[in-house]
């Protein structure tokens, strides 16, 4: 199919998008949802399994207390109501990565319902409604062998590893989000970003999209202004923040071209392709299995004690959005300045640097200046640039004490990033400390005056501005290790011009 896609501006001028997001988060509990197997990432295949998570005949599930608690905390952070009583359900379908051929999930009785998450897009606050937050179990991993691409198509056989099977998975489903217009892709991305930050602040998951501990399905539909919402598609396999944005955008374009050609949108699952940025059809919902949900008889209902829920609520950490607001105020930043801090991913680094005894301005200067430049050049995250907040604070302390000037400090920082040691060690080892020995300095000044009699005369005659040249000469002989201000004062006093 080689239909030319319409231009995005044109599409959003004629159609209104409605989006929705389903996010699956693997919880960072020690053990799986229904058994005592560890959840750590990356073990040899089938080394974190037991009769329960292998679905062996006779085995029974017992729910993980920590997973229930984490889910309730997520629900609270997303302003949800917490169910006073709910049950797990079985979702029945055959697939080899699911050991029991049913998934223990929640159906019509989720643990948390009806909340919201506020996100900022272009300086505006958009409130995203949260339909439900529920708990279920992850599947195993299937390796498709024999095909060219490692994909299911063309494979001759598949190999299954159940290490991941049974890891607690929280599913967070938004309500449909209408009215975002051209911003739909950005809103989708901002939502997932904010959700990720919330989950991180709660400490319930390592929320790494690359490792699959945060996975996103994106629902998209288009309708004409004033008309009913259109048929939606569900795009799966969206595994980065950038992809969330691209998936919405590309699906809007695709649907518009179908509609423009007089076609109808099929309600279906589509797969997102990271390489091309487009989506291809998967299973159509019309032929979808009947999951035959029913209450899981092997687990008894969960009835969170309201007092316990209140305790959890009171103990929630400050959520990222409020936290950022407070910092912006404390640091005295404009919206624009705060935005650049956020964009650089420097909030926590600056916070930690300040906590280590530096002023907000100095901390921001180092992280947004020298270190951001360096991170960009080497293509790493700022946090991985090679300097720690403690080291940056130490460096600034040396500057404040007059032991380093700005130029020397930058040299020391390079050494820190290169892993040569702490700022003090580098300064000492490389002999970079500002020369404050007045005797040595006076000698250097006298030497410069003797070597430049014309300039000395000018200064003596009141042309103080000419001192710059002599300062330069002194700095050169001291290899930059003198404090320029001290040198200048010394020159003027020696020439009787101060």
């Amino acid at each position, binding site marked *: 199919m080689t239909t030319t896609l319409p231009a995005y501006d044109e599409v959003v001028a004629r159609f209104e998008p409605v989006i929705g997001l389903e996010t699956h988060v693997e919880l960072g509990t020690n053990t799986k949802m229904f058994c005592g197997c560890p959840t750590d990432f990356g073990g040899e295949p089938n080394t974190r399994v037991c009769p329960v998570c292998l679905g062996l005949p006779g085995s029974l599930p017992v729910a993980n207390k920590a997973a229930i608690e984490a889910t309730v905390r997520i629900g609270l952070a997303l302003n949800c109501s917490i169910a006073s009583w709910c049950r797990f359900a079985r979702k029945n379908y055959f697939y080899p990565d699911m050991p029991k051929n049913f998934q223990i999930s929640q159906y019509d009785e989720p643990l948390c319902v009806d909340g919201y998450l506020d996100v900022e897009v272009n300086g505006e606050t958009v409130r995203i409604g949260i339909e439900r937050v529920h708990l279920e179990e992850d599947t195993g991993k299937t390796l498709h062998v024999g095909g060219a691409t490692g994909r299911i198509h063309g494979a001759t056989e598949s190999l299954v590893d159940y290490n991941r099977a049974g890891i607690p998975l929280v599913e967070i489903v938004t309500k449909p989000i209408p009215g975002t217009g051209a911003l739909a892709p950005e809103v989708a991305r901002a939502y997932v970003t904010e959700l990720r930050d919330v989950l991180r602040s709660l400490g319930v998951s390592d929320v790494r999209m690359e490792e699959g501990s945060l996975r996103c399905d994106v629902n998209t539909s288009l309708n004409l202004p004033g008309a009913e919402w259109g048929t939606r598609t569900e795009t799966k396999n969206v595994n980065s923040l950038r992809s969330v944005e691209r998936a919405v955008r590309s699906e809007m374009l695709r649907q518009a071209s179908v509609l423009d050609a007089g076609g109808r949108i099929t309600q279906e699952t589509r797969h997102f392709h990271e390489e091309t940025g487009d989506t291809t059809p998967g299973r159509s919902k019309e032929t979808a299995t009947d999951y*035959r949900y029913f209450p899981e008889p092997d687990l008894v209902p969960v009835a969170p004690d309201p007092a316990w829920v209140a305790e959890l609520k009171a103990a929630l950490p400050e959520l990222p959005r409020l936290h950022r607001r407070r910092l912006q105020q404390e640091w005295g930043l404009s919206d624009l300045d705060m935005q650049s801090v956020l964009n650089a991913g420097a909030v926590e680094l600056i916070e930690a640097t300040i906590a280590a005894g530096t002023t907000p301005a100095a901390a921001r200067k180092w992280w947004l200046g020298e270190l951001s430049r360096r991170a960009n050049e080497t293509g790493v995250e700022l946090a991985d640039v090679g300097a720690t907040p403690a080291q940056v604070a130490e460096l600034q302390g040396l500057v404040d004490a007059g032991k380093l000037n700005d130029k020397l400090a930058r040299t020391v920082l390079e050494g820190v990033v290169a892993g040569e040691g702490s700022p003090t060690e580098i300064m000492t080892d490389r002999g970079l400390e500002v020369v404050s020995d007045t005797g040595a300095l006076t000698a250097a000044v006298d030497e410069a005056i003797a070597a430049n009699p014309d300039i000395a005369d000018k200064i003596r005659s009141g042309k103080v501005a000419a001192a710059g040249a002599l300062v330069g000469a002194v700095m050169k002989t001291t290899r930059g290790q003198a404090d320029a201000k001290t040198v200048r004062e010394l020159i003027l006093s020696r020439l009787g011009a101060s």
Partner: protein
Amino acid sequence: MSDLTRLTAVEIAGLVAGGETSAVEVTQAHLDRIAAVDDRVRAFLHVDTDGALAAARAVDERRAAGEELGPLAGVPVAVKDVLTTKGVPTTVGSKILEGWRPPYDSTIVQRLRDAGTVMLGKTNMDEFAMGSSTEYSAYGATHNPWDLDRIPGGSGGGSAAALAAYEAPLAIGSDTGGSIRQPGAVTGTVGAKPTYGGTSRYGLVAFSSSLDTPGPCARTVLDAALLHQAIGGHDPRDSTSIPAPVPDVVAAARLGATGDLTGVKLGVVTEFSGEGAEPGVLAAFRESVDTLAKLGAEIVEVSCPHFRYALPAYYLIAPSECSSNLARFDGVRFGLRVGDDGNRSLEEVMQLTREAGFGPEVKRRIMIGTYALSSGYYDAYYGQAQKVRTLITRDFTAAFERVDALISPTTPFVAFPLGARTSDPYQMYLADLYTIPTNLYGGPGISVPCGLSDGLPVGLQVMAPTMADDRMYRVAAALESAVGTLTPPAL
């Protein structure tokens, strides 16, 4: 020494503890008996000769070392093949698990080991515990020791027949709709279904999770109580296990054995004491009711109007749960795989595996359950059945406000000839007419021999409130003290 296989568990344990015989001797006697009669009875699917003798030796060594032995140490026990046994074949009576040796023990089996009992082997059963005659076993039917041409009941026919044939003094069964009590009734043995949650389901291959209950089978009420005590109680690996101690069933059985039921009020279930049962069964039941009255019990009639819907509700709930529980038998992680010729897809191989691995009754129930859970049918079938379950529970609750326990015949008919009901599945279902309500409610029930009808055993069922298992043991032991145990003709 008299024939060791004719003794009760209490007697055997006493002799072993007193050093008058050894656990090895006792075990060998039972292994010999199995070798002598089981080709005709076919109670066992697997006899673990080496494991049994090793366990017996361990008991003898502990005794020799002066260790204190539990009340069942050295007593052989036969285990229904529905419970996982580490390294010992577990088939659930199905081809789909042929040759499977589980890598773990069920809690019940673990507790049997801890109690020093000696597991002789695994007993035959209807495939996946679905049936009332043991004819649906993929490994052939078990025969009733009272008449080898008749069924031993089901699904736990193997365990009951092993007791009646003196191949084991104790056995474990599981009761989803009557699979302990009905085989007990038709073989003249004692079978008790504990309160749901009173015995652990961990390692019990699930048929219907909300109903399955493992429990004791024996030739006397006291033996059953001792076994119940040994296997019962809270298990953290089963979320539906009740965190409370087992009611003192042993004391209750001893109290009942005194033959005094003064102050005990028993309700005869109106709906189960008239039409539907064979005349001989009703006659034996009526006589037992008179006996219970003579022992001092006050007898009243109690109507439980919703019990007539128990059978249809059960045959919706149990198949629904089974359709999901049995989905895991797909030839991927364990058990049979059929048709993997390098060309067929997984879907085809799964279908061929399940088609070849499951028998017709299992397929019927899986399809009924799939139907009942489908969208569009859920409310009218599964949903409605669960509401009926509530009403049946209310019937029980109301009844137990008036009486201490309910009584009825265990089953409407005595052991029928092999093959008599296999062509009409629904006729087979009727065998569990009287036992099913208890499963839907979750309370305990026991079947105790109450007489003969045309030379075949009849059982009386005692049903008690949940976690009042002790009450049913008291009543059953009292009746046993008056009626005596039944002895089948020599094999």
